[in-house]
């Protein structure tokens, strides 16, 4: 009798929300909040990673070969153009340790040292010394003292149609590279 009465209650069961339903709704809402926070966090970080850079080009003309006398010439783009009997190559002036600009140390008479790899005596007229933490590089950019972990990279050189030398600092070349004229 009493059960019948209970069953005949006139509220609609369709409006009733079950415990399970309520919890899943809360869960969904929570996921929504977390999701929006993650999305906002991501967009905040992503927005400060630039999509367009207004930086000087990595490939640029540095002038006619006649501009570079025998030996190493420093350029403000932080590299050295080396003219060796009208054969050219370019060495980066950025220390491989922590990025300071290396100085050119010139020797006359030439400095003599014994190469560790070949055992031969080598004469060199210049070296590169880093003022920040004392790394020292040979004429060809190899490290022989200080904390620098890698040799100075060589950049690719080419000749533009107008006869100027073009440096591409995005392309690293090996020590056999020479631009012959």
């Amino acid at each position, binding site marked *: 009798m009493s059960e019948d009465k209970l069953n005949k209650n006139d509220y609609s069961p369709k409006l009733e929300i079950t415990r399970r339903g309520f919890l899943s709704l809360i869960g969904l809402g929570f996921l929504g909040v977390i999701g929006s926070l993650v999305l906002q966090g991501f967009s905040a970080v992503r927005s400060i990673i*630039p999509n367009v850079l207004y930086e000087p080009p990595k490939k640029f003309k540095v002038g006619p070969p006649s501009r570079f006398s025998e030996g190493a010439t420093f350029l403000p783009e*932080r590299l050295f153009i080396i003219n060796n009997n009208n054969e050219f190559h370019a060495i980066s002036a950025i220390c491989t340790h922590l*990025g*300071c*600009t290396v100085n050119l140390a010139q020797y006359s008479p030439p400095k003599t040292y014994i190469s560790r790899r070949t055992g031969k005596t080598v004469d060199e007229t210049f070296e590169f010394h880093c*003022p920040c*933490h004392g790394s020292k590089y040979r004429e060809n950019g190899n490290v022989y003292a*200080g904390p620098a972990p*890698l040799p100075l990279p060589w950049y690719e050189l080419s000749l533009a149609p107008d006869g100027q030398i073009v440096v591409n600092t995005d392309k690293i070349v090996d020590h056999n590279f020479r631009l012959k004229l």
Partner: protein
Amino acid sequence: MIEKLRKLKKQLTWTYVPETEREASDAVVRNFVLHWFPSKVTSKSLSFLYTLELGTISILLFAILLITGVLLMFMYVPSVGQAYWGVKDIEYVVSFGPFIRGIHRIAASLMVAVVFLHMMRVFLTGAYKKGGKAIGSFRPLNWWIGLTLLLVTMLLSYTGYLLPWDQLAVWAVTIGMNIAKSAPFIGEKIAFLLRGGTIIDQNTLLRWYVAHVVLLPLFGVILIVWHMWRIRKDGGLGSVESLAEERIVKDKIVQKGKTYSLMGIVTGATPAIISHNVQGDTYFSSPQLTRRILIVFTISAVILLGIAFIYKAPLEAPASMIIPPNPAKAPWYFLWLQELVADTTIRIGSFTISGGFVGGILVPGVLILAAVLWPFLDKSGPEAIGVWFHKNRRLQNTVFILTVLVIIALIFVGSDMRGPYWKLYMPWQTWPKTPTKF
């Protein structure tokens, strides 16, 4: 008329005079500023020799830095073309400009020192240890907040001396970005994000400016507030723990003291201030603690102004990516890191690990990790909380002091023994060109 004026004066001035001790203690709880303090403190917490007042001085320096920093923001433009000349104007054209910049600079330098000394004090007194008696006490959390504050202080200094865009600034940012780059896997991405491009330029300056004037100070303020609140939640300074211990031994129970409702933001019990249980040998925060803080503030401010009158904030030549200064030196508090990155390149055969990674990321990382984990590695009992050089902590205190001495030695080598091309000279030798030490 006179009655009206008297009423107005009453409205404009603080006329509150507590009549009983109970009223005085309630006043501390009710007052917005004094709410940072418990209503009563123990004599040990008040002792100058326990805290050396280093935390208080840090907060004063931070406040002074905020005020002078806002003043400097009126005269500084974060642009590669104008930054250096703006600072030059502050130095030579603006009335009291050199004085304001001098205070800002010397307060920053002092803050690094004082915050570091504060950390040393907390370590040497074992005030970071677990096992406090107050409800909700967990001192390691405040130690971690403090470590983060130390890092924020260092980062604020670093970003600060980048802003004049002089030689010191660009070469510091160059070295910093290359250290970031030497982190494995994500290094290049992080460096790109920090530079805002592939070269150090306008984007870089603007990024570090925003970090210096908005992000880091805001983060610092939030952490300081949290730091102060944690002290209350941990039951006061570490020095009250020994008193609480005695009390437990005597009375066998700890009663809940005054609690502060947090309205369900944290679980468990509300913070209870154990010092209330420690009867006798306690003083009302107002006026004993407030008066002491005023005295410390005044003396520190006078000393700071005195140094700022004598000391001139340095400004090097305008930034040039072509000619680095020789030697290029960081301010004193980073010289030990610079010395490390210059010495720690490891060569095994043809395999080389850069000093930038070892000295710039690995060694500082290990030091920070050790500091973070230390509350769990420290096996001395709760009796060592809040006691200077407790005998159970003799070994760890020795190791800690030795580490600090090594850092100081490295700073000395970096500042006084490194000449052009980072060559080593003995202190009595002179090197070809004297570099600036700061």
